[in-house]
Structure formats: C-alpha cells, structure tokens
C-alpha cells in the first residue's frame, strides 16, 4: 500500500522563477495538506485541499497556490521565488473527518532557491 508520494525529491531554482511540486495521497485518502519546513524549524501549515477546493490556509502569501485534482492528487505552486522559500515541502494526506491522527506525511521535496 503506497503511502504519500511526492515529486521531485530535490529541486534547485533561481530567485524569481516559479515552481510546481506534486503530491499523490495515500490510497483511500481524500484530503491533502501542504507544509513548509525551514531548516531547524517545525513544519508550517500552508493550506489544505478537499473536494478540489482550498479549505483552510495558513499565513502564507498569495505567491503560494495549489490545486487538487479529481483523483485527489495535488500540486503546490510557488511564484516569484525568494531565497527564503528554500525549505523542505511536505505533503500530508488523510481521510476527511479524521483528526491529525489520520495524517500520513510524504518524504518531502527539498527546494533550494539560489
């Protein structure tokens, strides 16, 4: 049973560019959340998608946007990259209605902005 799959695993981008990160949720899960984890910090909530709509959003600028597809997979887009966007981006999935206990995290995408 595949868990949460993220791609790519590593990415290097130049400041000002745009990036798209992808996430396939665990089988049976319909809700996807994205987190940003800076080096030495805890994960910070970006947003959550359910039924192809953004349901909740953390304190992140509009440069961060997302999408969920009918098969529940999701994308995270970041425009106008800044050096400070360098981080590990984690995707987590669960079945709607479950608490955090139901979250499964992917291995993450390490984004480096130069």
């Amino acid at each position, binding site marked *: 049973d595949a868990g949460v799959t993220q791609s790519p695993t590593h990415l290097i981008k130049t400041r000002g560019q745009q990036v798209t990160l992808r996430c396939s949720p665990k089988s049976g899960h319909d809700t996807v959340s994205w987190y940003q984890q800076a080096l030495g910090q805890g994960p910070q909530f970006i947003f959550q998608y359910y039924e192809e709509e953004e349901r909740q959003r953390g304190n992140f600028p509009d440069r961060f946007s997302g999408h969920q597809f009918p098969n529940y997979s999701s994308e995270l887009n970041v425009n106008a990259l800044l050096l400070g966007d360098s981080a590990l981006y984690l995707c987590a999935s669960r079945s709607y209605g479950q608490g*955090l206990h139901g979250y499964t995290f992917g291995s993450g995408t390490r984004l480096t902005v130069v």
Partner: protein
Amino acid sequence: ELKVEQNPLFLSMQEGKNYTIYCNYSTTSDRLYWYRQDPGKSLESLFVLLSNGAVKQEGRLMASLDTKARLSTLHITAAVHDLSATYFCATGGSYIPTFGRGTSLIVHP
C-alpha cells in the same frame, strides 16, 4: 494565535539515561500529537493524546497530556542510539496542526 513551545530544543544524552521533553501550548486543544523525524526524512507519527491525563507508551517512549496545564511530556527511558532524531509535538483545532520547533535528540554510546 496558537503557540507551541518545546524544550529543550537540543538534547545530548548518554545511552541508558532517562530524560523528558516538554511541550507547552498556548490555547485549549483537544488533541496533542508527537512525531519523530530522522534527518532528511519525513514525519513519523508516534502518539496521539486525546484527553486530560492520557498516557501512552511505546517501547522506551512514554507521552502524557495535562490539558489543564496545557502541557505534554515525552519521557525517554534508558535511551539507546536508535532514538536519535528530532521530536515534534503538534496541536490545534480544525484538524490543522501547529507544530513546535522540535527537540533534536542525540544519544551517545
């Protein structure tokens, strides 16, 4: 704004010793979670605590929750090298977790 504070942030201990990691949170929450993260890896769920006085144990790790004090502890008994990792607590409503900064644990032989 919900704040979650962990201490210590760094912990270096010898094998066989006991220690406790503390997690304080600023507003009432009905659930508290502990995660483990190995370097370069994702988050692994350790415990979920759902009520005041809840205690859960898995191997050398035991977690407890005091909702009145807004405090959770993760106790390590007779530490072994394999426990070296970063430990996060998280809590929050609407199923959206707020994480602490994590406690980086290194267990020396």
